[in-house]
């Protein structure tokens, strides 16, 4: 493709063109799709992730001489099939990641748009709320709430969602500020468009790019936070399989059966790395001026 055709392309096609040539996009996006697929259809093919078999405890994975294809990744200390638990954990990580970002994205975007569009007192109050949110230590607050309210997937989603909206608000605020005085917004106001219409129809579509970038970062953030909470024993409740919980349950096997930690650990790192790579690729495309 020559420079001439690049300059005649529409911004949207140019962005797509850049995205499709981005290595991180293919690697990150591919890995995420694969994990999503495993999370959705994997449970159809694996054993019951919570069925215990005390006769087959701590079976090593198939690449070990004592391993067998009955349990390709081996079993844990309660004789539960590790592959089935890994697949179940993918489901939970994906669910938490996506559901919390819907909550935090909604809160953060609404606050950021209000602050950026109205300015003045509204901006002052919302900035103050962001400062307060940053002052609260995330892991500690989440632990306290889960301990007090009780642990369930919906509690986790709400708690993590209520804690991770700050970056959405900051990014939306500055993006909205830039647009609030642009010609097309002034024109919309001049023809009598209502404020909600200006916000939703004029401004929102134009800040989708940075929003998607923040969303990917925050999905990774939420997945890591859920894993940390589950690791500390106040996240996903047993017998559900969360990757963080699987690591915690096998902590004292570190010396003799390190694979029990390595398997969920590698899964967790792969997912978060894939999300981060996708986020990096999207950032390069959405905000090319920030490329270093």
């Amino acid at each position, binding site marked *: 493709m020559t420079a001439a055709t690049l300059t005649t392309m529409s911004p949207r096609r140019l962005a797509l063109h850049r995205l499709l040539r981005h290595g991180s996009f293919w690697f990150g996006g591919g890995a995420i799709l694969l994990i999503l697929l495993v999370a959705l259809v994997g449970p159809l093919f694996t054993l019951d992730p919570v069925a215990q078999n005390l006769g087959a405890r701590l079976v090593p994975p198939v690449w070990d001489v004592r391993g067998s294809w009955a349990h390709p990744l081996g079993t844990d200390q309660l004789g539960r099939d590790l592959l089935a638990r890994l697949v179940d954990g993918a489901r939970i990580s994906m669910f938490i990641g996506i559901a919390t970002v819907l909550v935090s994205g909604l809160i953060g975007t609404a606050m950021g748009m209000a602050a950026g569009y109205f300015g003045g007192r509204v901006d002052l109050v919302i900035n103050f709320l962001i400062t307060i949110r940053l002052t609260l230590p995330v892991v500690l607050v989440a632990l306290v709430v889960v301990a*007090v309210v009780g642990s369930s997937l919906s509690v986790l989603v709400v708690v993590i969602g209520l804690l991770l909206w700050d970056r959405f608000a900051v990014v939306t605020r500055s993006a909205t500020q830039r647009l609030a005085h642009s010609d097309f917004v002034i024109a919309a106001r001049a023809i009598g468009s209502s404020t909600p219409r200006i916000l939703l129809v004029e401004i929102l579509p134009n800040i989708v790019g940075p929003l998607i970038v923040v969303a990917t970062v925050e999905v990774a953030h939420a997945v890591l936070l859920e894993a940390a909470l589950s690791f*500390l024993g106040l996240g996903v409740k047993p017998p559900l399989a969360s990757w963080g919980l699987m690591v915690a349950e096998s902590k004292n096997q570190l010396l003799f059966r390190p694979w029990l930690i390595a398997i969920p650990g590698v899964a967790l790192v792969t997912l978060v790395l894939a999300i981060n790579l996708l986020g990096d690729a999207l950032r390069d495309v959405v905000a090319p001026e920030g490329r270093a």
Partner: protein
Amino acid sequence: MLRFLARRLLVTLLVIACTSVLAFSLVHLSGDPAAAMAGEGASPADVESIRRLYGFDQPIHTQYFAWIGKILTGDFGRSFYLRQSVITVLAEHAPVTAKLGLSALVFALLLSIPLGILAGLHRDTALDRFALGLAVAGQALPSFLFALLLIYIFGVQLRWLPISGSATWLHFVLPSVTLGYYAAPALMRLTRSGMIDVMQSDHVRTARAYGLPAWRVVLLHALRSAIIPVVSLAAVQLGFMLGGSIVVETVFSLKGLGLLAWQSIQRSDIEVIQAILLLIALIYALLTLLADLLNALIDPRIRIS
């Protein structure tokens, strides 16, 4: 500058006041902590007497003002589990967390500043990409997993370092590396972009034109102006690390505020939980204030807006 300082102080005070309300109400989310404190199998009379003793039968705002009023006189209450005043318990655990936080910060700076300088000087080379790649990969590794990895390599396989407790400074090496590692990428990126900017500035060009050796130009002339934002970010990162030390302290059994918080949550020891929440928020707010002042000192535009 004085007006800026006064305004920022006022905001910090407001933030701390609001956080204290939040810290208090979080613990009282379920309405009545008496049942949790009495534990399973307690008789209704026991629960009632605990409720009376701690004042949980009072309206919630009365309880809050009683609590904050006592704190303002320096009384943080008593830990019902440890049967000690909260101040004594905090004073016992705080030094470990302070030591951990500071040594983690030192590690983060030692890792990020040289890498950031090199990446900035050799922009778009393999070295630059390596540094950025390290940052991306590092962010994907959860801290508890990184901690277990370090324990496995340096504690179990190589047997170089102790993996649990806080007896000697050697006990702090692995926890500090774990904690500091997560503060490093942001510091490195900021050092890198600062170096890229400053190397194109007039005073660095002049220093070069004088024929000063390259290391003098970089370390004495360029770094001096690139480092101040990094220092102020480091202050904020230290605040984050104090809040995030809970995972690291739990894995390495360091008896600091994080481990204390985790144990107190398990024991429903609410006066301790409240005090730790408030303390960490307070330190974070003060460190952010410090960072803001530092930034305002070097960049007058911040003071005016």
